[in-house]
């Protein structure tokens, strides 16, 4: 068990961590998240004393970290950094063995451990053991970075934005791998990130920090359901698809389709007919040159009243349902059900410009994401 008790740290008079209290259970995966400068990395690094706290104490299984020799302490806490930092003068095997070597393991044990670890991430010794870091991709390097941290079987591992420099696909698969490893080995993990998606994916518990304080510490589910305040909500809003229809935070803009087939009011009837048949739609949204909403024109109106060469403004139907982009999505849902003639609602911004439409399909997708958690 790890306990932060009234931990404070200042740099040049500015408090970056304010009287922080946090208890982390054995085997727990805790993600520290928050805007940059919120003190999350400082909080992480005070645990292995890469940064010394000003006051308070951090206990590991009841023993204050200040009582340990810092080097010995760090050898028992795995550490992974964003810049990977594999030693370029050492092979993969030597890199993995850095800490075991400091702990004076015998050669046989070290070699066995290397084989074991490489197998954990689906690599073979023959293929990778003698390679140097610069002969591997960034993702492979960070895999080894994680193995280096795990090598001496530490009960705790610290990760400081470990996947921040990787491409999205590699990041995704490493997140999965690390999460699985962590679960299987039962290692207490503290993980710093500023990516809410990553936090939700990895964490048993998310600790949201801002201005050196913990604003909320909860399971991802609880965090999503009930953000403690606006700061948290706003931060999550940026990163996570909103998932509740009755949540006033879910707006029309969140569920709309952004691709809208529009026609400028200067267009003539035949052009519009051509456009509709080309895209296989039965109505067009008509806008002026500034994309301001004027109305719609339906294929029926064109057929019944249209004369070749006449401007479409004569056929404009202005009764179509519209919503504002920041209105609750429920509004659109209601209007969509009420409208018989049209199967979509037009979404406008403050300047009455067309920014999207909500169709029955986009509505059901949003609903599905709530019911089954399917991502948009």
């Amino acid at each position, binding site marked *: 068990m790890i306990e932060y008790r009234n931990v404070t740290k200042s740099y040049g008079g500015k408090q970056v961590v304010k009287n922080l209290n946090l208890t982390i259970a054995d085997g727990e995966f805790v993600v520290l998240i928050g805007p940059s400068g919120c003190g999350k990395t400082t909080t992480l690094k005070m645990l*292995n004393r*890469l940064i010394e706290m000003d006051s308070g104490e951090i206990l590991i299984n009841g023993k204050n970290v200040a009582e340990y020799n*810092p*080097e*010995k*302490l*760090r*050898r*028992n806490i795995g*550490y992974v*950094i964003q*810049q*990977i*930092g*594999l*030693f*370029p*003068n*050492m*092979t993969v095997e030597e890199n993995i063995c*850095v*800490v075991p070597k*400091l702990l004076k393991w015998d050669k046989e044990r070290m070699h066995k451990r290397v084989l074991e670890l490489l197998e954990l991430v689906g690599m073979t010794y023959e293929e990778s053991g003698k390679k*140097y*870091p*610069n*002969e591997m991709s960034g993702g492979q390097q960070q895999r080894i970075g994680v193995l*280096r941290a795990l090598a001496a079987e530490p009960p705790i591992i*610290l990760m400081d934005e470990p996947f921040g420099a990787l491409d999205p696909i590699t990041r995704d698969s490493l997140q999965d791998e690390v999460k699985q490893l962590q679960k299987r080995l039962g290692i207490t993990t503290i993980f710093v990130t500023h990516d809410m998606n990553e936090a939700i994916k990895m964490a048993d518990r998310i600790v949201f920090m801002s201005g050196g304080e913990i604003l909320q510490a909860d399971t991802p589910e609880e965090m999503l359901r009930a953000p403690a305040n606006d700061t948290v909500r706003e931060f999550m809003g940026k990163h996570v698809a909103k998932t509740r229809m009755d949540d006033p935070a879910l707006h029309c803009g969140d569920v709309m389709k952004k691709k809208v087939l529009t026609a400028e009011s200067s267009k003539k009837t035949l052009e519009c007919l051509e456009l509709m048949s080309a895209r296989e739609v039965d109505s067009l949204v008509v806008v002026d040159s500034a994309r301001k909403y004027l109305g719609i024109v339906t294929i029926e109106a064109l057929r019944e009243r249209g004369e070749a060469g006449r401007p479409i403004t004569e056929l404009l139907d202005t009764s179509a349902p519209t919503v504002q982009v920041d209105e609750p999505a429920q509004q659109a849902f209601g209007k969509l059900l009420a409208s018989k003639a049209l199967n979509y609602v037009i979404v406008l911004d403050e300047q009455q410009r067309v920014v999207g439409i909500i169709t029955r399909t986009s509505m059901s997708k949003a609903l599905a994401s709530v019911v089954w958690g399917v991502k948009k």
Partner: protein
Amino acid sequence: MTFQHFWDTYALMLGKAILTHLGYVFVAVSCGTVVAIILGVLLTRLPKMSKFIMPVLSVFQTIPGIVFIGILFIYIGMVPKTVLIALSIYAVFPVLKNTYAGIINVEDKYREAARGCGMSSWQIMFRVELPLAMPTIMTGIRMATVYTVSWAVLAAMIGQGGLGEFIYRGLGTNNNTLIIIGAIPAAIMAVLLGHGIDRLQKAVTPRGMRKED
């Protein structure tokens, strides 16, 4: 002059001169390197002092080796020790400068990773910083070696042998043969030693740190 005559006259002298010259270079570069690496490491631990010391050292490096030999000659006299000390001092500068620069330029991420792994400051020095600085240090050693071969020629100026003896005497007596006998082996020695250190550097640089060229 026939080749036979030439050989009889100079072979032994030349052999001895080459060995003396090599001896000067080897001793000076070894001593200079050891001192330079120790000083270089210490300087990286004293960043504030180094700010002043490094520029001063650069200035000292511009002093020609002849000055060291000259001054020491006045104090110590016409003995091999004079040459060895002067050349060692001269060999210190390039190695010291490169050791310092090599260590300072090690990227911080490696230091942080090493600290995070629980290495002590000395362990970081020996396992991470020095190995990563090694290519730069080797470049310094190469410079020191080539310079030393060059300046060791001046040992003859105070009668301490080496290949300079031929050049020096040749210049003094306008004897072109003597000049060539000294100059060519000295040139070859410098090129070979430089080349040898290049090879050594490639051999000792781990594959992971070799730059593609």
